């Protein structure tokens, strides 16, 4: 199963992902129309993109009272059916990330649809904070990076 993985240490807060998401999905440019949101703490220079992780056991699907949140058959995505969504926001509360966002105009929730298998946010993220692939890649990469620092510290001793 492929997802968008986030490495927050690499995020520089440029908001390119927000822009490309809102532009490609809604035709407007606005961080508030994006399905990915960059949270910032400028005094410690920390930027963390929050995006739907397409959970294996999505709490949003369990809690949705109208059955609007569901896993789309044939894809990896968990999506909101706009016709059934009543905008009760319970998925926002249930999600451990609070990743679903309210659409500025329709007031229904929306989450990442992986751009039909080619997420644009991962293409424009030149900082390397966002990547798309099987979940295994992220953990392998992180493990490797950690091993490398270990290697450096033992070598330099």
């Amino acid at each position: 199963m492929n997802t968008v993985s986030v490495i927050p240490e690499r995020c520089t807060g440029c908001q390119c992902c927000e822009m490309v998401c809102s532009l490609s999905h809604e035709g407007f440019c606005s961080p508030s129309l994006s399905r990915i949101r960059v949270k910032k703490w400028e005094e410690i220079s920390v930027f963390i993109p929050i995006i739907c992780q397409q959970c294996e056991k999505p709490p949003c699907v369990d809690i949705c009272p109208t059955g609007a949140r569901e896993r789309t058959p044939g894809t990896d995505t968990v999506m909101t059916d706009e016709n059934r969504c009543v905008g009760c926001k319970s998925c926002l509360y249930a999600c451990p990330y609070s990743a679903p966002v309210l659409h500025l105009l329709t007031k229904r929730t929306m989450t990442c649809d992986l751009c039909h298998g080619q997420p644009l946010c991962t293409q424009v993220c030149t900082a390397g904070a966002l990547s798309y692939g099987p979940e295994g890649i992220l953990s392998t990469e992180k493990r490797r990076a950690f091993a490398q620092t270990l290697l450096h510290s033992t070598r330099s001793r």
Partner: protein
Amino acid sequence: MIKGWTGKRLRIDLGFQKAWVEDIAPADLRQWFGGRGLNASFFVQHFPSPISPASPENPVAFAAGPLTGTLAPASGWTSIASISPILDPPRYGITRMAGHFGASLKGAGFDQCIIQGRANRPVYLWIDGEEVKFEKADHLWGKETTGTTVAIQEEKADRSVEVLCIGPAGERRLPFANAIHRLSWTGDHLGLGYLFGVKQLKAIAIRGKKPITLHDPQRFLNLCLGLKDRIQKDRKIRRLRESGAFSLLEREGGVMMKQGTGRLPFGSEKQWAISLRTHVSGRQSCFSCPVHCGVNIEYQRGYFGGIHPEKAWHWGPQIGVYNGEWTLKLLRFCQTRGLDPFLAGSLLTRILEGVETGPLSEEDLRQADGIEDQGEKAFFILHRLIDSSRKEFDLVASRCPENEDLDVLADILSFCLVVVNRLNLMTVSNMIDLVHAATGYALSKKELRDTIWNILQMESRLQNKQLHPTDESPLPHFGEGQISEILRKEEHHNESIIHGTAS
């Protein structure tokens, strides 16, 4: 309906605590685009002759461009204009600020924001869409910039708010104080901190949520993706990204070498850069920029980002400091107090030079001591100070634009000067295409040339400079100048590409 632009100007009077919205005529937008052009035309209309920078009427103008707040690469800059206290005599001055401020101004629904008047007690402006509030800032007065930014965001219970604030230096009305945004990006070379301080304005906090409409979203998306891809793959950019803006230092160094210290041990600048690099902890980027050249520094539990080489240079080799630790200490001081590193740096250069080599020699001092009359003494010292100084005393740090016309073009479209003018990663045709896709306005190259020429003329009129395109002006590239040259080169280049693929 206007696309790309918002077509609105926010006017604020701090004295009467009033805010109102004006429409900007579409014809004006098409003529001046935005940023520097809009600001200059506002001043020509309302303030053709300079007024005192300390007077309440003196407007501080912020303006974004038609591409600010969109996906267009490196388009996050803001143009700022006012009657500047650091120019002698005080007159119209401009500067530009990188970062996210312009994008949030645009998101609030404005192309331009003009602040006038003087508050009778410290305030900060809270702009939430079209709602503008004048919030008390007594509890923030005296606070450092970091504390102010965080306090305002917590007061509004929203960390996504963008804050532009001054520190104690601005409150004390030092002419070389600046305003800082996201604790990284500053509006320098203008005395912005002084202007805020005079108006008793501690900060501007903006939350912008309005979507920006585009003429042809699909084409705009494709153009931006293509451009971002090209910029990302560029060799110069890769170097910039790997080693931060320090990679530009070699070029900066040659121009701004400190004079009068004699020869330095070989490689000391390199050592200085290396010692700075040991404190690097990640990067920070302007709005919608694929370059991420801002370098974050972690120093003594304090973080500061967006270090650009010029800033570090002014507190490093420029003043003879070759110890990275001290450079960081000085920069940190500037950042928290809200001092302009360029101006404060050049002032310090002068003072330090005085301490080291002494414009007043011991002999001078002895002579001065012998003078009875206080007036004569003052004259003697002043005379010695001015006449014996070997170096030109220039408070405004020297900047050498590589191409003035491209500077103007970048400023009116709110593009990054480094990407457009220094590294030339976007062609003029690219920018024209982007403007067309965003606004639906297909501008010809001739119109662009006229606009740039008109803006330069307006500015020189505001600054009481006389420009004659045919004369030997100090700027040799006016009118039928550089922009035409660039366009010719671009066309030639395109032709050769077409020719190359055909053959």
